[in-house]
């Protein structure tokens, strides 16, 4: 049933008894045209766009747990398209454009909220780097503004301007950046894909990839073998594990990134702000919790939990940026598993196996990329050629030396 103010009103009158399930709970069919491994944001988005943009509906999304149980279910909800490199920037801007029409498109309010993303800078060097980045954005028509200290102070007077170890010199602002209710993204895509005929199969873990004549024949799962014409992997966090089933070794390490939410507060901070003198970024959810995070813990991990040291570093940077946070209480911390790639940029590409497609390596930028990732991955699966905005996300770029290293850290995933 279509969601609208009217449907909410009418159902309310009838005691909300007539709402239907947002998606079916089908049993797996023996064969699908396309099987997507991973019922996270990217997998569900891919299924949605396969159906909507390419009319491919004989699709199954296999999720080992409940849908949205990966990073779309545990992130800091930020969307932005403030990228530097020409291989990245158009892709993330496509994502931003898709966000901007998403809710009307899939008829689900994911609370896409463009209240701005501000990156603070504290030195001439950072200012120059943000100038370069802002110009790269401008050249592609992406909104970007460079603010000086006074402008930042007018905007956020409660930051530490007077007693800071690393004084705030200014910031790079993208007004179209913002936040999205993360779970709703997964649910919205799931509901949209389901209504177009896609089978979303939960509690169905892929345990093996069956090959025949150098092709993928299908997948072994905890619910039996399922055959397919094309197999697409969107299991970020566990990409290496899944790819290994196909004998592929990836330029990826899995790392844990922690995030945090405070007790609910009346409006405290409007947009997203990132600290330039330490690892800290913060926004406030519509429910009132301050949502914030910092850097990854720094070691390979598949455990969705972090280290107290990192918690302290994040809090220190937070209070250094906003002294008023001192008495705010942190309610909850959690950890998500990141596909940290060797140059900090993702992979959307074909593989050595003709009908096996790979979507991986999102580092901690995967959430904002969800719509474009699904859109471009669907394009690759349907047409066999990369979408123009994702053409740089090649798997062979490491061997050929065409790296997408925004930070210039080299082959050291925990530094990206």
């Amino acid at each position, binding site marked *: 049933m279509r969601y609208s103010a009217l449907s909410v009103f009418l159902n309310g009158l009838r005691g909300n008894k007539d709402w239907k399930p947002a998606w079916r709970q089908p049993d797996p069919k023996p064969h699908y045209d396309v099987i997507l491994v991973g019922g996270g944001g990217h997998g569900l988005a891919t299924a949605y766009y396969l159906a909507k943009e390419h009319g491919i509906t004989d699709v199954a999304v296999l999720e080992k747990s409940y849908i949205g149980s990966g990073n779309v279910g545990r992130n800091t909800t930020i969307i932005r398209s403030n990228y530097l490199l020409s291989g990245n920037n158009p892709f993330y801007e496509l994502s931003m454009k898709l966000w901007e029409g998403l809710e009307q498109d899939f008829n689900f309010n994911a609370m896409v909220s463009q209240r701005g993303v501000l990156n603070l800078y504290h030195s001439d060097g950072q200012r120059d780097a943000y100038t370069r980045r802002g110009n790269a954005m401008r050249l592609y028509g992406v909104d970007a503004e460079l603010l000086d200290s006074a402008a930042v102070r007018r905007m956020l007077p409660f930051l530490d301007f007077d007693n800071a170890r690393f004084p705030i010199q200014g910031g790079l602002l993208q007004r179209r950046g913002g936040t999205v209710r993360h779970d709703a993204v997964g649910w919205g895509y799931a509901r949209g894909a389901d209504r177009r005929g896609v089978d979303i199969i939960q509690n169905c873990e892929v345990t093996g990839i069956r090959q025949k004549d150098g092709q993928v024949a299908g997948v072994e799962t905890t619910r039996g073998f399922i055959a397919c014409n094309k197999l697409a992997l969107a299991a970020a966090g*566990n990409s290496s594990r899944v790819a290994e089933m196909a004998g592929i070794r990836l330029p*990826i390490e*899995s790392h844990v990134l922690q995030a945090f939410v405070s007790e609910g507060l009346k409006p405290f901070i409007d947009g997203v702000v990132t600290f330039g003198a330490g690892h800290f970024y913060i926004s406030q959810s519509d429910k009132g919790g301050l949502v914030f995070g910092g850097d990854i813990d*720094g*070691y390979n*991990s598949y455990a969705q939990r972090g*280290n107290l040291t990192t918690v302290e*570093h994040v809090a220190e940077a937070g209070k250094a940026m906003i002294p008023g946070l001192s008495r705010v209480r942190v309610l909850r911390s959690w950890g998500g598993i990141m596909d940290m790639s060797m140059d900090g940029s993702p992979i959307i590409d074909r593989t050595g196996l003709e009908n096996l497609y790979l979507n991986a390596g999102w580092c901690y930028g995967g959430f904002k990329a969800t719509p474009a990732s699904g859109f471009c991955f669907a394009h690759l699966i349907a047409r066999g050629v990369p979408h123009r905005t994702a053409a740089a996300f090649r798997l062979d770029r490491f*061997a050929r030396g065409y790296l997408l290293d925004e930070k210039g850290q080299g082959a050291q995933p*925990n530094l990206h």
Partner: protein
Amino acid sequence: MASIVPCPHCGSRPREEFTVKGAALPRPAPEAGKDAWLAYVYLRDNPRGSHREYWHHTSGCRRWLVVTRDTATHEITACSDVADTSGVKP
């Protein structure tokens, strides 16, 4: 136990005293082929489970250690000096 690392020289120390490099892989011979070098620099097993990795006790003895750690439980099962000097105490 990634919160506490049992440095063979200094005893148990908190994570913030260390720098993590990553998988403890042998550096290929100079004459080794392109693929061997690509694998060394870029490709990772990234196992779920036991993982051998290089940690540097940066704020301690400044020795490089090989830490064997379970990436699912974070439990450290072994930690030794790269030169295996764990027996030698200054």
